[in-house]
């Protein structure tokens, strides 16, 4: 890279992406480890939310507001997934 200094936005975006990436990794550890199925559902739900934040940061980084549309869709789908998992958990708990 030729330029020596990053602008303030670039620095903030890089830091933010690193932090969200670390959060994603921690959540993924819980997803793999999670002793019960609800733990994994919570981790998966959080990963969806973290992905929305990551997309927002990436939209700022690349100066592309179009990228916020996938974030919207991801938020919607993530909620549907959570509701579906919760319904499944409820049914499974009653059958046992």
């Amino acid at each position, binding site marked *: 890279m030729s330029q020596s200094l990053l602008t303030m936005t670039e*620095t903030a975006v890089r830091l933010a992406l690193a932090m*969200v990436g*670390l959060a994603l990794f921690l959540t993924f550890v819980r997803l793999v480890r999670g002793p*019960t199925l609800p733990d994994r559902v919570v981790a998966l739900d959080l990963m969806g939310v973290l992905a929305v934040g990551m997309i*927002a940061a990436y939209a700022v980084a690349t100066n592309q507001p179009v990228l916020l549309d996938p*974030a919207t869709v991801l938020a919607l789908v993530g*909620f549907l997934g959570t509701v579906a998992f919760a319904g499944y958990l409820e049914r499974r708990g009653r059958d046992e």
Partner: protein
Amino acid sequence: MSEQVSAALLLIGAFFMLLAGLGVLRLPDLFMRLQAATKASTLGVGCMLLAAAVHFQGLAVTTRTTLVIAFFCVTAPVGAHMIARAAYAAGVPLWEGTIVDELRERRRASRDPAPGRTADSPPPVEDREPA
């Protein structure tokens, strides 16, 4: 000016997301993890989307980000409640240091009323809340 605000909001949001990830990994039982995941991540994603809105400064982007933030504020508690309810009904264990479990007392009270009741168990629901 807007550049500083956007950068600060990005960093604050990312910090709260990191807190959410840390809480989900480190807290001792499902319900604590759930509250960390729900509240911290809602605040984090709200801050980051606000940062995007401040950065782009257009009506279209602001509308979209506001919609997503409002959507998260509405759906995150609903989803968390559904998961917690299902997990509690399925018998996910609470942390061994838990002191109060009002839901269990309530359920026990409503399931087997007067005859099996001991002196220290709480009164049934009907006694506490007159209709």
